[in-house]
């Protein structure tokens, strides 16, 4: 029988006609339906049917009813067949029931056809419902899935579920389940919370499923797929025997799986059931796909809106051009730029603001690698700015089709300038560091708490520290001698705090136990360049051992010179005194005696030979002249009397020199310093020579001698208002030999003497002699 025949409903099943008398004995039994009942025509004739069907209560009842005169039709199941029975009593002339006639028609097929038609109608209604649901619930995939599972389960099964792929994993998970019985449904949901793991399908098990698959859920061994144990447990728990798995496919892609299952009582799935589930699955897959696409589109749209908002708000320059270079999006920063962006070709604009070469470079790189990152200078009316630009070709994630080009630029004009400044500063820093490291001086930096942060290598070497020692474990006192520490606490640190710096001398401790190292120190505070707050102490210290040694040597030399000078002067004085005494005792006395005797001779000649007197006169003059010269020599040789100081001695000398002249002299010794006798003696002789020169040559009205301290030594000036020196004198100039003697004497004593003309007139002799060593 074809479904078409069923549709038309024209076929009536085989029938049986039987008769019986009033007592129930079969009188007739014929018809094609007998075969279906396992009987031969006439086989039961003569047998009492009430006895024959005594075990069939329905049959007995029917027989009795018809024998009581009732005509009726009844339908019943018999031996697995559906039978329509028509009973008609026959009456005797007296009206009593004489027998009955029955017609049995096998309507099994008819009923089946009718059921199928009903099922088809139901299916059509279901599909209509599903279609309606799909069209209305498409915006809500979960609602859609609920409708689908519920519909398909109610139509052909006891339980059903839809599985959907888990994004990013090769798994499918149950999204919606349904059970026809409410109690079971509730139990399902309760039980689901404690579903055994894994409660999912492996994508590999369903990926290649093309047609509906019937699953025997009666035992786990029959389930070959990966989640067999899981399904078996479900089957056991909910008394499911047969399952049907149908893939949800859209355009060939698996978008999910529908599974329905039946209990043992419900039998196996018919072709119609499978067709129904397949139909629904197809529609569901389509709707699901649409729904997912719609969701994706909505999502994409939202993303787009967000991205655009992001781009709009970005402080960067953002632009998107289509594959032809036509700008399709420019963010406000770009629009604010005082540049007219070509509406047709963004490359034209780029070439305009950055030059053709640069634009070409970007475009070439983009063509090869799809991306270009770099800095480009952009000429704007208000000046050039530097943009760090990232240009990339946009492609569809699936098809790889070119969608356009994205441009993101960041204004790095100041950043690059700052970077350059930073590089320069770093280079400076390196240079300074190299300078400090190369400096022969001890250079150290300490925190304000005295913790040492840095000591340069020559500094470590100077104090005898190992070059690799970690100075951050040391403090300032570690580097100082006890005296140096005392001086640092008493003098240096207060000065640095008060003035920001201190310069002086001290000693560093020798870490190898040698003698302290004398150093010249410059210490100062390092301040923060911005806040001015001090944050560190720095010190630069120079080893002055050699200088100290040189100074000591110099001082010793000066002392030696002083001693030598003293001895020289003493020796000179002794010699002068001896000469003076010799002159005084011998030539002077002798001449004085001659003078006296010439006087006696003169008196005698006067009396006895006056004519000889004129012979005597030149003799007397010679003696007198010689005596005067010797007296002058004695004056010159005379050692100074320093009882009243150099001032007193020069006063005496001036009095003697200018005796008998009209020259007015003064000796100003208010500022006379305390000096060794040897120095004062040299000064006395030189100044006296100057006074003698003035007396002899200057014709001065006034002479002033001034004695003062100067530059650690003794200064004596002799100033007159006389005629001056005249032409530059030389050693051979008569009367000027004394000038050079003065200068020689000063030089021998370590000083100097200058004689010069004064303005408007006169001579100035300036003498300076060093004081005792160390007095300077």
């Amino acid at each position, binding site marked *: 029988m074809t479904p078409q025949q069923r549709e038309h409903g024209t076929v009536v099943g085989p029938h049986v006609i039987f008769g019986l008398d009033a007592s129930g004995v079969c009188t007739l039994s014929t018809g094609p339906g007998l075969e279906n009942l396992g009987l031969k025509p006439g086989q039961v004739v003569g047998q009492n049917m009430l006895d024959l069907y005594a075990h069939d209560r329905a049959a007995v009842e029917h027989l009795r009813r018809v024998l009581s005169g009732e005509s009726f039709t009844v339908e019943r199941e018999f031996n697995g067949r559906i039978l329509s029975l028509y009973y008609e009593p026959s009456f005797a002339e007296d009206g009593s029931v004489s027998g009955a006639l029955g017609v049995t028609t096998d309507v099994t097929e008819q009923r089946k056809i009718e059921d199928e038609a009903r099922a088809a109608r139901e299916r059509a209604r279901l599909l209509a419902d599903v279609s309606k649901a799909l069209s209305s619930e498409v915006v809500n995939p979960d609602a859609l899935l609920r409708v689908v599972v519920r519909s398909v389960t109610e139509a052909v099964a006891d339980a059903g579920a839809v599985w959907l792929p888990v994004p990013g994993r090769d798994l499918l998970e149950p999204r919606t389940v349904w059970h026809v019985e409410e109690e079971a449904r509730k139990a399902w949901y309760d039980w689901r919370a404690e579903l055994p793991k894994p409660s999912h399908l492996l994508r590999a098990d369903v990926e290649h499923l093309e047609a509906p698959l019937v699953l025997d859920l009666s035992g786990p061994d029959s389930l070959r797929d990966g989640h067999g144990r899981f399904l078996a447990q479900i089957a056991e728990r909910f008394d499911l025997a047969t399952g049907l798995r149908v893939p949800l496919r859209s355009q060939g892609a698996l978008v999910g799986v529908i599974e329905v299952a039946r209990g043992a009582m419900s039998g196996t799935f018919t072709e119609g059931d499978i067709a129904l589930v397949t139909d629904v699955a197809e529609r569901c897959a389509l709707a699901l796909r649409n729904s997912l696409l719609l969701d994706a589109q909505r999502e994409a749209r939202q993303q787009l809106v967000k991205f655009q908002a992001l781009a709009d708000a970005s402080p960067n320059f953002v632009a998107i051009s289509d594959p032809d270079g036509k700008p399709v999006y420019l963010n406000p920063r770009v629009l604010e730029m005082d540049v007219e962006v070509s509406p047709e070709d963004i490359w034209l604009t780029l070439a305009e603001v950055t030059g053709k070469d640069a634009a070409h470079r970007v475009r070439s790189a983009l063509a090869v690698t799809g991306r270009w990152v770099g800095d480009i200078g952009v000429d704007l009316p208000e000046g050039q700015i530097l943009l760090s630009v990232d240009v990339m070709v946009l492609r569809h994630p699936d098809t790889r089709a070119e969608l356009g080009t994205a441009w993101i630029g960041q204004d790095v004009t100041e950043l690059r300038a700052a970077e350059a400044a930073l590089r320069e500063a770093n280079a400076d820093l390196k240079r300074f560091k190299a300078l400090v490291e190369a400096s022969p001086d001890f250079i150290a930096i300490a925190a304000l708490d005295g913790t040492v942060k840095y000591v340069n290598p020559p500094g470590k070497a100077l104090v005898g520290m190992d070059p690799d020692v970690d100075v951050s474990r040391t403090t300032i006192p570690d580097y100082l001698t006890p005296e140096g520490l005392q001086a640092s606490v008493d003098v240096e640190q207060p000065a640095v705090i008060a003035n920001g710096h201190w310069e002086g001398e001290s000693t560093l401790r020798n870490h190898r136990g040698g003698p302290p190292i004398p150093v010249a120190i410059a210490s100062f505070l390092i301040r923060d360049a911005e806040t001015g707050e001090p944050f560190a102490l720095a010190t630069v210290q120079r080893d002055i051992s050699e200088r100290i040694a040189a100074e000591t040597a110099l001082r010793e030399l000066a002392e030696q010179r002083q001693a030598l000078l003293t001895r020289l002067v003493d020796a000179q004085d002794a010699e002068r005194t001896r000469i003076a005494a010799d002159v005084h005792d011998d030539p002077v006395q002798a001449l004085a005696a001659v003078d006296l005797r010439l006087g006696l001779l*003169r008196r005698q000649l006067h009396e006895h030979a006056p004519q000889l007197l004129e012979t005597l006169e030149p003799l007397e003059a010679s003696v007198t002249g010689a005596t005067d010269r010797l007296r002058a020599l004695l004056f010159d040789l005379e050692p100074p*009397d320093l009882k009243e100081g150099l001032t007193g001695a020069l006063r005496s000398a001036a009095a003697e020199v200018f005796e008998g002249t009209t020259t007015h002299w003064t000796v100003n010794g208010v500022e006379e310093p305390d000096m060794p006798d040897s120095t004062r003696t040299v000064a006395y002789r030189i100044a006296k020579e100057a006074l003698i020169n003035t007396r002899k040559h200057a014709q001065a009205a006034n002479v002033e001698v001034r004695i003062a301290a100067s530059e650690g030594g003794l200064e004596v000036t002799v100033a007159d208002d006389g005629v001056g020196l005249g032409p530059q004198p030389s050693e051979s100039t008569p009367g000027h030999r004394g000038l050079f003697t003065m200068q020689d004497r000063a030089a021998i004593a370590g000083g100097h003497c200058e004689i010069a003309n004064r303005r408007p007139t006169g001579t100035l002799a300036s003498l300076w002699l060093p004081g005792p060593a160390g007095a300077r």
Partner: protein
Amino acid sequence: MRRIRVLIADDHPGFTSALVSVLEADPRFIVAATATTGEEALRLAAETPVDVALLDVHMPFGGPAAAEALAALPYPPALVAISAQSGQAVVEEMLRAGAVGYLTKGRVGAVLPDLLARCVEGEVILATPAAAGALRAVLEAPVARA
């Protein structure tokens, strides 16, 4: 006529000899004694008073010290200094020590006896260029400075 008694104190024998010759040749004088030190001169003057003492400034215990000692005698002689030195300081010192004459060796020659005689008579004769300054200093500061 009584001769003027002269004490010569000088440690230069040549000069003393010449002085003795000059004075002995002059009838107004008689050289009563000669000494070569200040002490000797003081002792001799104390033993035998003289009218005038010619004192060399430069001799042991000579100069101002001898002059002061002689001036302190009960009958002090007229004190005349005679020296090769002619510095103002020395002259001043001798004046303060009581000298009434100051003669410069080598400059007196023939006039020495006359000058000596005048000093004995009471004149003050300072025959040296430094005399004025010395006198001024003494007058300005009558008491000698320490």
